[in-house]
């Protein structure tokens, strides 16, 4: 039987079991790295550095995980804080990496042209709207969970998702039809 995230967290807490923590990293690395890549506008090296920092912080502060939210939600919150701190330090965001956009798409899943336009449209959204859209529409978090991750009021999350979605729909109207 596969252990749940909560079981693995308990093992880390009780036995300082680093194998259990490794399993947690394996399970969540894709979603955390994916989110950070989109926040960092596809600068993969930066996103992976931030993802590594996210998991190291998670390990260090695992006692503060109270189990009230999903472990992934807790990780997203740390990831978002890492990104914000980095952005504040650099006071600039890395531009969209065209080469990366062309190398990553999976032609069996989504039209490369559509993917390019979608990623470009996403990168044009203000950070607060982009983050809300990524968390709720892409990573499947509820508005309440996203509010917890971003540490902002629920109403603000709803507004940001609505505005972000509207802008994306307008930009991608030709593809939708």
């Amino acid at each position, binding site marked *: 039987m596969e252990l749940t995230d909560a079981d693995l967290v*308990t093992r880390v*807490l*009780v*036995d*300082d079991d*680093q194998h259990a*923590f*490794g399993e947690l*990293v*394996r399970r969540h*690395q*894709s979603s955390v*790295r*994916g989110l950070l*890549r*989109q926040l960092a506008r596809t600068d993969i090296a930066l996103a*992976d550095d931030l*993802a*590594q920092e996210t*998991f*190291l912080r998670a*390990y*260090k502060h695992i006692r503060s995980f*109270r*189990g009230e939210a999903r472990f992934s939600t807790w990780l997203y919150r740390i990831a978002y804080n890492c990104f914000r701190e980095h952005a504040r330090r650099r006071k600039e965001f890395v531009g969209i990496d065209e080469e990366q956009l062309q190398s*990553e*798409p*999976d032609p069996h*899943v*989504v039209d490369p042209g*559509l*993917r390019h336009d*979608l*990623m470009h449209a*996403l990168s044009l959204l203000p950070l607060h709207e982009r983050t809300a*859209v*990524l968390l709720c*529409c*892409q990573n*499947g978090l509820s508005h309440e969970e996203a509010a917890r991750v971003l540490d902002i009021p629920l109403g603000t999350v709803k507004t940001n998702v609505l505005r972000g*979605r509207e802008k*994306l*729909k307008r930009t*991608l109207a030709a*593809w*939708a*039809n």
Partner: protein
Amino acid sequence: MNEKNQEEWLDRRLREAVPYIEDDGFTARVLRKLPPAKLRDQSLRSIILIGLTALGSALAYVLSDGGRFVVIEMSRLATIPTLWLFAVALGSGILVMTGGLIASISKTADLQS
């Protein structure tokens, strides 16, 4: 396409736009950067505690004239009534058990939170 369908279409495209990212050694890199497991710290702490206890005992033995007080107390203990001895043993047992229970309850509460 109506409003609801458009939203579903957009959400689906957003999910599909980010394919699963292969681990490619990421987990191993994270694990290499973790601080050493606490187990080693705990072992070191145990060794220090045992060492200090042994040192303290040896010191007490030497300072008490070769442990003369131990001999006196042992002979005194041998003369007390069996019932008293039983009461002392029972009292000590209950005390240790209570301590263990309190420790385990507080540890459980800590883990559950």
